[in-house]
């Protein structure tokens, strides 16, 4: 019974012109999206490599210079693209990809792609994640909205009843036949992506296991949609009604809820504006140690402490350059201030994330969206990780420069210049995105939500309807 339903339904799909056109369109869209996405990926990484090399060359070739001038000249940290961003671009285009690292100030990542695009870009990009998250569920709806209703409309329900078919067997057959084409398309897509990614030499740290997890997440997402569409079809009397209901579900969970969630999260836990944030930081900085200002209160205290520690009565008698020492102390102090304020920002986002997590109970799209971005290293957390790593590197760089300045010059000797070779000793900036296991453990709540949706929707489909 299950097998014959499966066969019959799939034959039906293949014979329907409407479905053939839909399948072809989806395949075509996927191909185009992949092509565009891989071009974009290659271009970005090419730029990343060249920018990284030329920036390092700028840094290394500074010549003889005062270390503090070098600190103000600064350097840049660039964010690479990760292999799975080929499938899910996540928030990448909304965050900057380069951070300026200089003395005294922590900068935000600059130049997001979205800021350089027209308003049209806000409709969405033709990228694989757009197809996977929005179009595939629509395909499920198109294939399955009339699974049960057509039996009513064509009168074949009487035939099925007369054969003594049980609802479970029929439902299972229909479920398999609906899920089968989706499974085939998704598998092809991921297999193709995997092959492409493992072939290209520059694709960095590509892992089949991460791709496999991503594949799993999307399959569960489609299983949920399959269950819900079939449930609606089984409960509706007419195909038109079933279609409109399934679509309302799609609009609600994929379009309306995420937008509403974004507004609600923003209202409840707002971010400060860029200027407010800067003003708060400045206020704390003014009350703290100013590395350039010997008249500053905290600077005076530090001076007294150091003089007492070394048992001397003038800064000139110290075995190191106190100017540089004070700058380093101030740098450490200011880094703390930045950590404090960025932690507040993170806390705001953590609260926003709770709103999203809560709403994921209503919309399976949200959980899938977040899991997919995390696995692809294109989520907000990865961006935070990058920004934090850049900040740590900035603080370490300042210590490296101030250390040289302090050791090799005397107090007040602002004319000191470090050797031209000195700059090469600074280790390069490295950032490794979180490991797969870390991502999985960080996203446990979302995984549970997905599991709950999966089980719940199966139960809904199989246990709410007993008879044909």
């Amino acid at each position, binding site marked *: 019974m299950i097998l014959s339903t499966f066969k019959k339904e799939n034959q039906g799909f293949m014979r329907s012109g*409407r479905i053939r056109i839909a399948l072809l369109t989806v395949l075509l869209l996927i191909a185009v999206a992949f092509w*565009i996405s891989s071009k974009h990926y290659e271009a*970005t990484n090419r730029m*990343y490599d*060249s*920018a990284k090399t*030329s920036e390092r060359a*700028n840094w290394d070739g*500074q010549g003889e210079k005062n270390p503090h001038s070098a600190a103000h*000249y600064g350097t840049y940290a*660039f964010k690479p693209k990760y292999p799975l961003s080929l499938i899910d671009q*996540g*928030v990448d285009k*909304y*965050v900057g*990809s*380069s951070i300026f690292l200089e003395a005294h100030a922590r900068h*935000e990542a*600059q130049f997001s792609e*979205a*800021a350089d*695009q*027209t*308003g*049209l870009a*806000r*409709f*969405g*990009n*033709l990228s694989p994640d*757009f197809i996977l998250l*929005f179009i595939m569920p629509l395909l499920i709806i*198109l294939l399955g*909205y*009339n699974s049960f209703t057509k039996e009513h409309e064509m009168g074949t329900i009487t035939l099925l009843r007369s054969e003594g078919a049980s609802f479970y067997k029929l439902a299972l057959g229909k479920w398999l036949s609906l899920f089968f084409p989706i499974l085939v398309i998704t598998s092809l897509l991921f297999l193709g992506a995997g092959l492409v990614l493992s072939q290209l030499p520059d694709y960095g740290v590509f892992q089949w296991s991460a791709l496999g997890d991503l594949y799993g997440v999307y399959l569960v997402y489609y299983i949920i949609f399959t269950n819900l569409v079939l449930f609606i079809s089984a409960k509706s009397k*007419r195909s*038109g009604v079933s*279609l*409109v209901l399934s*679509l*309302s579900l799609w609009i609600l969970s994929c379009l309306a809820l*995420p*937008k*509403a*969630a*974004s*507004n609600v*999260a*923003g*209202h409840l836990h707002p*971010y400060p*504006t*860029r*200027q*407010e944030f800067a003003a708060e930081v400045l206020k704390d900085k003014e009350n703290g140690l*100013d590395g350039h200002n010997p*008249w500053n209160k905290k600077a005076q205290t530090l001076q007294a402490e150091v003089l007492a520690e070394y048992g001397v009565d003038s800064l000139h008698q110290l075995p190191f350059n106190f100017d540089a020492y004070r700058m380093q102390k101030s740098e450490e102090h200011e880094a703390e201030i930045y950590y404090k304020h960025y932690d507040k920002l993170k806390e705001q*986002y953590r609260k*926003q*994330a709770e709103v999203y997590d809560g709403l994921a109970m209503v919309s399976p799209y949200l959980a899938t969206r977040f899991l997919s971005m995390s696995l692809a290293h294109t989520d907000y957390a990865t961006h935070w990780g990058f920004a934090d790593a850049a900040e740590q590197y900035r603080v370490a760089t300042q210590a490296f420069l101030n250390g040289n300045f302090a050791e090799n010059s005397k107090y007040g000797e602002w004319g000191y210049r470090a050797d031209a070779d000195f700059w090469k000793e600074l280790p390069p900036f490295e950032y490794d995105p979180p490991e797969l296991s870390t991502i999985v453990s960080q996203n446990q709540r979302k995984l549970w939500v997905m599991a709950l949706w999966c089980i719940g929707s199966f139960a809904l489909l199989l246990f709410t309807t007993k008879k044909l």
Partner: protein
Amino acid sequence: MFSYNLKYELKLLWRSRWIQLLGVLLLVLIGFAVYNGQVKTDQWENSIQTAQQTLKASDAAMVKVLDSVEQGLEVSLAPWLVPTSPMAVGNVHPRVVAKDAQPLSYIATGQSDLFTPYVSPKATGDDFAIEFTEMTSPVQLLFGNFDLAFVIIYLLPLLIIAFSYHVLSAEKERGSLRILMAQPISIRQWVFQKLTLRFLVLSVLVIVAFVAVALGFGLDVWANAPSFFILIALVLTYMLFWFALVFLVNLWVGQSARNAISLLGLWIFFVLLVPSILNQIGSVLYPMPSRTQMIGQMRSLKAEATEKQDEILDNFLRDHPEYAVNDSTQKRNFYHRYVASQQLIRSELEPVVNRYTEQLQKQQDLLGNFKWLSPAIVVQQALNRLAGNSTADFLNYKFQVMGFSETWRNHLMPLLYNNQDFSQEDVPKLPVFQYQPLSSSATSALLVLLGLVVLLFGLGFGFTKRIWAS
């Protein structure tokens, strides 16, 4: 027959509770959307107001310090912060250069969630590195906003589709089509009348819902009546476009479910696919140069300029003798060299930086030429313009910021190169920025939409004749 049809249909819609359902739904959707828009606009305005107040306070403090200095008193400020130095004024007391919210800003978020309400360019800062983007959670940007534009562009067509996809097919499926065909009216005429009524009903509901929401939130509709009428006209023509599609599909397709599928296919095509494909074509034809590359160029130029700063300063002063005419000391310090180098870097980087706006402008032009491919794009653009939050508005703002930044620098530069102190009297003379919004016109959008509507109805009345005849 017509009036009879109207009466009958109206009664039917009321008794089947369609009118009540749509009314409540519209009220809730529009209410939530306008509320969201209003909150955003308030935040935007508050942020600017706070900044203006802070600036006022800091200017007052600056005057006090200047007064003390002019009286020969000692001030407790680091020497480079004392406002007698024009560059201290230029960098520590920058002006607030704000993009004021427009009366209808709440209808469409547009690009405004990406950018800050105001910037404060410093005299020696890098113009091309002015941070226009706002500190928002990128997740929020990714999901977008539940604003009025979203309700109109995405949801309203779906309501129309759900409301009338089976006007004709339901009759067929119920078997009442035969009775209908015996009436002295053509089927096409009948469907047309039925849809006209539905359009009128929905229009009234939309207008009522909007007015109710506007009154509820205390929005001043009368003060902006012209813009408000344009908004309503846009919404109604957009609705008309979807009703025209519904009309065609009802005549051409047949079964209810098929009608629904066809209409939803069209919705996906117009609202999701065409915009994203057009966007993609735009960025393929006019690709944005890489920002990382720009950083590279800027860095190399800066490194070069630092090495040759004395030479640059000499050349600069030779080119601008007016800057140092009143100075007898000819003393040169860090800022003299730095400002001259910055000037040079700026002029050399200008073509690189302009390329971004040029490419964006070209993408925008392409969009202007092909927007008729999707009425969703036409309406999005028109609403964003009406709200003052479109790409064009932000480009305009950026140009004005660059202009003001130049004014700000030029205002202080003579003082710097003449080694003159900034004094109390100079404070009221400091330039003030006033944002000049673009004038928005929705005429072309309305014409495009109307053209599409006429085309669709023409198709409906012209071609279906043959189908029904055969």
